[in-house]
């Protein structure tokens, strides 16, 4: 636990001591803001739906970019040797890294609360329950993509490669339920269950179902375990 905290703190300091984190956050806020205000004025909508449709799309690029350096850079610079010659478990190392990146994602998500405040000031009826579950869903999707990014950062020492692999896996998860018409009916159920969007839209509709939560937790767990596997393999090569 203390090791996780040590890694987490170090990682967050690294993010926020460099301009990179701020640049990411500004881009994230601006892109979301642009799409939000556009649809807001065009359709005169008074809910957060437009925003909640945009954020998962922005995530696709934003999250692999935030996570690409997590492990790949330590491998590239060699600092992973410092960590792996100290009494620290791979699981602790990975969890600390994952949580730090996830924190940055949550901060990014936090910038979109500005739009909620705008809506409140405009003073239309807001379904606060749906907003709350919508944000929960967005946090979950963010965590899933962060776990994917952590994994892809562990299979290479090249950050660009880590980004591309991360983007690819995340795209597959994102597009799955949009491809349902192309798959045989027998497979459709499974593909739908695996798709992130299916579970996200369930949650953001205002229903918190444990099946959706279990899905998110399993995918996150799967990718973090795969990351641990990658780190373990290195020692035996």
């Amino acid at each position, binding site marked *: 636990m203390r090791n996780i905290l040590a890694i987490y703190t*170090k990682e967050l300091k690294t993010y926020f*001591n460099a301009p990179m984190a701020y640049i990411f956050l500004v881009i994230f806020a601006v892109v979301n803001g642009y799409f939000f205000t556009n649809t807001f004025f065009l359709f005169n909508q008074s809910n957060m739906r437009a925003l909640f449709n945009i954020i998962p799309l922005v995530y696709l690029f934003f999250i692999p970019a935030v996570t690409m350096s997590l492990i790949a850079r330590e491998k590239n610079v*060699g600092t992973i*040797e410092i960590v792996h010659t100290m009494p620290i478990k791979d699981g602790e190392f990975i969890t600390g890294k994952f949580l730090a990146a996830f924190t940055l994602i949550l901060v990014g998500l936090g910038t979109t609360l500005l739009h909620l405040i705008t809506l409140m000031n405009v003073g239309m009826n807001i379904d606060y329950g749906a907003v709350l579950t919508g944000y929960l869903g967005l946090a979950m999707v963010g965590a899933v993509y962060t776990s994917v990014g952590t994994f892809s950062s562990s299979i290479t020492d090249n950050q660009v490669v880590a980004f591309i692999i991360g983007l690819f896996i995340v795209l597959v998860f994102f597009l799955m339920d949009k491809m349902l018409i192309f798959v045989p009916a027998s497979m459709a159920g499974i593909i739908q269950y695996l798709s992130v969007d299916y579970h996200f839209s369930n949650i953001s509709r205002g229903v918190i179902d444990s099946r959706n939560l279990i899905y998110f937790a399993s995918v996150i767990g799967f990718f973090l375990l795969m990351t641990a596997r990658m780190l373990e393999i290195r020692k035996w090569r």
Partner: protein
Amino acid sequence: MIKVEKLSKYYGDVKAVKSIDFTVNDGEILGFLGANGAGKTTTLKVITGYLMPTSGNVYVNDMNILEHSHEIQKQIGYLAELNPLYNEMIVYDFLEFIAKIRRIEGAAYKKALVRVIDQCGLSGVVHRQIGACSKGYKQRIGLATAMIHDPAILLLDEPVTGLDPNQIVEIRELIKELGKEKLVMISSHILQEIQATVDRIVIIHKGEIVADGTSQELMSGFVGNTQLTLEAHKVNDESLQTFAATHPAINVVKTEDLKNDHRILHLEYAKEKDPRTEIFKFAVDSGWVITEMSPHQIELENIFRSLTKEGGSNA
């Protein structure tokens, strides 16, 4: 104590370490010597738990590396050869991070920090970014990282390579001091760098141990040639040829002609057959006037070189 038993480590087809055995005792400073690519770093990486052995065993204080790697890591301080550091971090934050993982926090951290700042001479750079420090300071930061938990065992992979002579002297002094109470293992590919510091030397060549002992033991056990320099006047070509012809056991390696038959001869002969009296007699008979005759001490350097030259061992 570190006990390495039949340790092998292969990287795919590359056999970096081939079934080596050696022991390092508590309170001993061991020099782990070998040319580049001999397998030093690989061996150290296995001892630190960074790499798993292909076969064989390593015991650190009687704990097996495969079963107790974290327990072992708690007792080891390690300075990696390339000394990787988080360049974007402040020295203070970095050492604090290391200390946290070593479970040294709060007041204990402050105390440990003061100790390593003093031992490693870091006082000028504590609040500097690591990336902005010079190579010498980075090396000290690496050392401080290895020492912050005051470990019983220090493994230093080429700790002085690339430093300037003054820095080398300082680090040597520090290692000597630390070696009084700790087990220290230093690797190097340059004998002179460690000869004066270490109690014992293990030489590794192409993944195999080719020598193990104190410098005295290595020198007395070595079968090799002794060299002798002979400076004399009135050494004409004719008498020199006669000398070579009548003394087949002596190899004339080189002659330097000064002037008027004043020459310096570099001779070589098997260590156990000292031909100096013979040479003296010959010189008197041929009218040579000897001004200097000095055999060279067998140097550890020669032993190291001949043990590790291409093609294999001499011993």
